[in-house]
């Protein structure tokens, strides 16, 4: 009896990690952009959706098999993110915060409109390479989809970590993010670095989108709740902390899953407000998040 309850619990934890991995990827995208350009990119979800539709077009309309389409989409998303930064964000990133916020909102509306225009609002199906089978690990039933999701998100996060920590380019990216004036003085082309940051963020978004679509179905509004969970994760972990984004995302995924199943009062519809309550409470109690550094106001 206990073993069965435990198995149930572990199943929820594992699938919580899977959805948490998706939140972590998108949260990491938000953090990268905020750290480097100081902007909260409200259109991150819609960018991810657009890239996922590209993947769909490749597999559905052109008959590509999944993994080549996946890689091609990542390449597309990188260029897409870079171009968006260069063309739309660079002219306004230095000015008023609100101005940039409105621009990203404009992007949100435009990208969403573009998707509806090109692919219509009807839901579509994006195949998953992981299939619908499950495996049994000591009584705990786990779906390959969840396993695959966890592996892919983990893989991409690790790759990015390696890039940031151990390569010259990663060092330059970090330097440009924390101290752009100084970075220029040592020869770093800061505006290209910022563009690169947007490119990498778009890649993360595309991964999140392509992993979300098989389970919830591909439609233009697909990433909107995910974006909110990603905000909650980023705020929870610390809006400038990449580690915080990942930990926050995973924790939130597990937490929401467990609450949704085990707490009757909440049920499935209140998952979203719970996430928002998290945002709210964290912002009131410790705005810099778990891993963030509290800001000191300098007079």
């Amino acid at each position, binding site marked *: 009896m206990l073993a069965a309850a435990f198995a149930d619990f572990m199943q929820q934890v594992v699938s919580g990690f899977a959805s948490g991995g998706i939140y972590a990827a998108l949260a990491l995208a938000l953090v990268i952009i905020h750290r480097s350009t100081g902007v909260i990119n409200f259109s991150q979800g819609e960018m991810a959706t657009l890239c996922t539709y590209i993947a769909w077009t490749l597999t559905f309309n052109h008959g590509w098999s999944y993994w080549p389409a996946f890689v091609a989409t990542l390449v597309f998303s990188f260029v897409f993110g870079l171009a968006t930064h260069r063309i739309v964000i660079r002219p306004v990133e230095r000015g008023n915060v609100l101005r940039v916020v409105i621009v990203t909102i404009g992007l949100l509306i435009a990208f969403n409109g573009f998707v509806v225009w090109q692919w219509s609002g009807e839901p579509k199906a994006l195949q998953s390479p992981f299939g619908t089978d499950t495996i049994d690990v000591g009584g705990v039933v786990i779906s390959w989809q969840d396993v695959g999701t966890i592996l892919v998100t983990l893989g991409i996060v690790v790759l990015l970590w390696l890039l940031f920590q151990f390569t010259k380019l990663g060092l*330059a990216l970090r330097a440009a993010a924390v*101290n752009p004036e*100084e970075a220029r*003085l*040592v020869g770093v082309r800061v505006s290209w670095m910022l563009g690169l940051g947007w490119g990498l963020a778009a890649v993360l978004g595309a991964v999140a989108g392509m992993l979300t679509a098989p389970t919830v179905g591909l439609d233009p509004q697909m990433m909107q709740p995910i974006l909110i969970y990603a905000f909650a994760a980023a705020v929870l972990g610390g809006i400038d902390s990449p580690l915080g984004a990942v930990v926050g995302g995973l924790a939130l995924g597990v937490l929401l899953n467990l609450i949704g199943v085990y707490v009757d009062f909440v049920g499935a519809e209140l998952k979203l407000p719970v996430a928002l309550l998290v945002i709210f409470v964290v912002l009131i109690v410790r705005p810099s998040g778990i891993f963030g550094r509290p800001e000191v106001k300098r007079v």
Partner: protein
Amino acid sequence: MPNLLELDEVEARYGPVQALRGVSLTVNEGEIVAVLGANGAGKTTTLRAISGTVSRSGTIELYGKRLRGGPEAAARAGIAHVPEGRGTFVELSVVENLRIGAYTRRDRQVKSDIERVSEYFPWMLERGGQRAGTLSGGEQQMLALARALMSRPRLLLLDEPSLGLAPMIVREFFRTVLHLNENEGLTVLVVEQDARIALASSSRAYVLEVGRVALTGSSAQLQGDESVRRSYLGY
């Protein structure tokens, strides 16, 4: 053989304010040259004009070749600018600060250079993983200097290194700069509020006043001239 650095009637402005009204100076290889003057005279702006951080007109030549573009171009041309307030990457570690200093280099000797540089500052290797923001002011100034060295610069620009530092630390800093100049042939252009130590550490000096060169001469000369010291240098 052209001068290492030559400025000819360089002007610069911040919006409506004209900061430099035609500055001309030269720096030769292996020299330490000081730029002095009161607050607002244009000392920092002169360095910014050289590194391209502020937009300027007039001629700036490095070994006879015109310097154009922004800071990135200046860095690639071999100019290392240590700005006012040190400009260390406070969120990166000590070693990472050194590594990023070598950004423009494409050779494979960066690692050995880190070791070479730490001969002057042994504590940097010991505390390589420490976050630069937790270092003291003096240590950050040394780190900024070491970082500048990592690019194997042709010209080192130092902007008010004594700012906010205790006199003893400042003396140690300038001692190190002199040392580097003697051993490595490092050419330095240093802007300073503290005229005394700047003159003691340099061979030549320029005194700026409201965006122009008011006076120039050998540092020994300027040091010895009491009227100059009183009217221009404040001591």
